[in-house]
């Protein structure tokens, strides 16, 4: 009978009160005349409360007359009556609908732009450039292509290293990173000295302008004056020139690396353990499960569950996968340790040596002990160590 109830709800029904002495006869006659009554309750000796569909209600008249009873409607239920109510208050509902539409429309525009990371550049310059690329107050959110604006901003403003654009609600957050000021070049007509940038032995010094203060074969320390731009001659006043020289010097680099003979290796065992958790507005709902592995690789994926147009509801499903790792202790021989040591030392030392330097000599010494092998690398290179410094 549930379907019938739903049907009645859709068609509309009334709750009635029937008064009369022959109340049982009233019910029986209703049944015989194909009138569906339901939820009949006795209120007192002569009164019942029942539900009846609005269509059947009109058919009751003849029964009422036959049984001398008295009917009263106490409530009208169902969709048709609800619709009637809505019709009477249509402006109220239209207003509610308009409000929601209004909020939706308003919230699909950018109303605020905030810029972070400014140091030297004027904020107005950034705002002007952004508006030229299509991000300004009052622009529709779905017209904004974030990546494109970021790239275009970088092309437009060469003084920026990075631009990040994020939209939250009706606010656009622009994060910028300015380029560091480039090292100031000293103009040809400005007087300057040349000093050593690091310790070394001068291999060859070729002075083009200025007075050389060191000779080939001299050992120099960091910041030592190599070429002076102050020229002092007898009988002449002091003169300042722009020093120019090529100073090639031998310099040294060294590094240490220790390789234990016992090597621990981690290998994937192929077992994967997966947990699921929900995150609602940064609040994590999680069952505390114990991870059955001692060592593992953890990997997280996030899925936003609800998307509505350009709105992303802050409900996400976090899938965490744990891959089991099995540790294995391996004893390596002295020769193997040496190969690993050499490889690591070479990569480490390469980071220290400038690119334009010429490697003259390279030597690795090994100091074995009981548990590990210590390797030391010495590299001798030829490089330009002259740095220009302005004379004040």
């Amino acid at each position, binding site marked *: 009978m549930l379907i019938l109830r739903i049907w009645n709800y859709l068609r509309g029904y009334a709750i009635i009160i029937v008064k009369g002495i022959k109340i*049982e006869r009233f019910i*029986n006659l209703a049944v*015989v005349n194909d009138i*569906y009554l*339901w*939820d*009949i309750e*006795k209120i007192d*000796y002569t009164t*019942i409360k029942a539900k009846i569909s609005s269509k059947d209600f009109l058919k009751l008249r003849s029964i009422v007359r036959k049984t001398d009873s008295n009917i009263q409607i106490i409530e009208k239920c169902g969709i048709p009556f609800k619709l009637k109510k809505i019709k009477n208050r249509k402006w109220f509902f239209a207003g509610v609908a308009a409000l929601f539409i209004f909020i939706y429309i308003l919230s699909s525009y950018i109303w605020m732009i905030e810029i972070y990371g400014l140091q030297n550049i004027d904020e107005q310059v950034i705002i002007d450039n952004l508006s030229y690329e299509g991000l300004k107050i009052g622009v529709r959110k779905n017209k904004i292509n974030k990546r494109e604006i970021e790239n275009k901003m970088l092309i437009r403003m060469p003084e920026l290293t990075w631009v990040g654009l994020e939209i939250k609600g009706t606010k656009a957050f622009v994060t910028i990173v300015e380029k560091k000021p480039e090292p100031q070049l000293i103009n040809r007509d400005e007087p300057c000295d040349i000093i050593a940038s690091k310790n070394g032995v001068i291999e060859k010094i070729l002075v083009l302008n200025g007075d050389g203060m060191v000779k080939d074969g001299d050992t120099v320390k960091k910041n030592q004056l190599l070429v002076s731009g102050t020229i002092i001659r007898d009988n002449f006043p002091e003169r300042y020139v722009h020093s120019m020289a090529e100073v090639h010097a031998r310099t040294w680099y060294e590094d240490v690396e220790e390789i234990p003979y016992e090597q621990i290796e981690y290998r994937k065992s192929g077992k994967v353990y997966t947990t699921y958790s929900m995150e609602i507005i940064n609040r994590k709902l999680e069952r505390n499960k114990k991870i059955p592995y001692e060592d593992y690789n953890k990997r997280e994926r996030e899925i936003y569950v609800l998307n509505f147009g350009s709105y992303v509801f802050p409900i996400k499903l976090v899938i965490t996968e744990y891959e089991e790792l099995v540790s294995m202790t391996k004893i390596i021989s002295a020769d193997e340790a040496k190969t690993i040591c050499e490889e690591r030392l070479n990569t480490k030392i390469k980071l220290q040596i400038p690119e334009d330097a010429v490697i003259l000599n390279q030597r690795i010494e090994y100091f074995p002990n009981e548990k590990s092998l210590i390797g030391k690398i010495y590299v001798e290179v030829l490089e330009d160590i002259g740095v220009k410094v302005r004379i004040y």
Partner: protein
Amino acid sequence: MSSKSYKIKEKISDALELPKDITLDIPKIVILGTDSVSIENHKGIISYKDNEVRINTGSGILTITGHKLAIKSIILEEIIIIGKIDSIGYR
């Protein structure tokens, strides 16, 4: 009820294994716990009170007693009575 035609009908439906409630026009009563009774093949309500409902059926007058009895649904074939049921019997 013990007329000749009734006995013949009963024998035929026994022999053919037909459901008796249909062939003999007798009620089929389903009681669900103490909350609900449904009577198929009824012949109308005789009296309806808060604590007693009497229903006419093919096998006599069925009396249901209890508290707060209500007729959940009534159509030509079936009555469903709900409430706290104490006893059901033909009286």
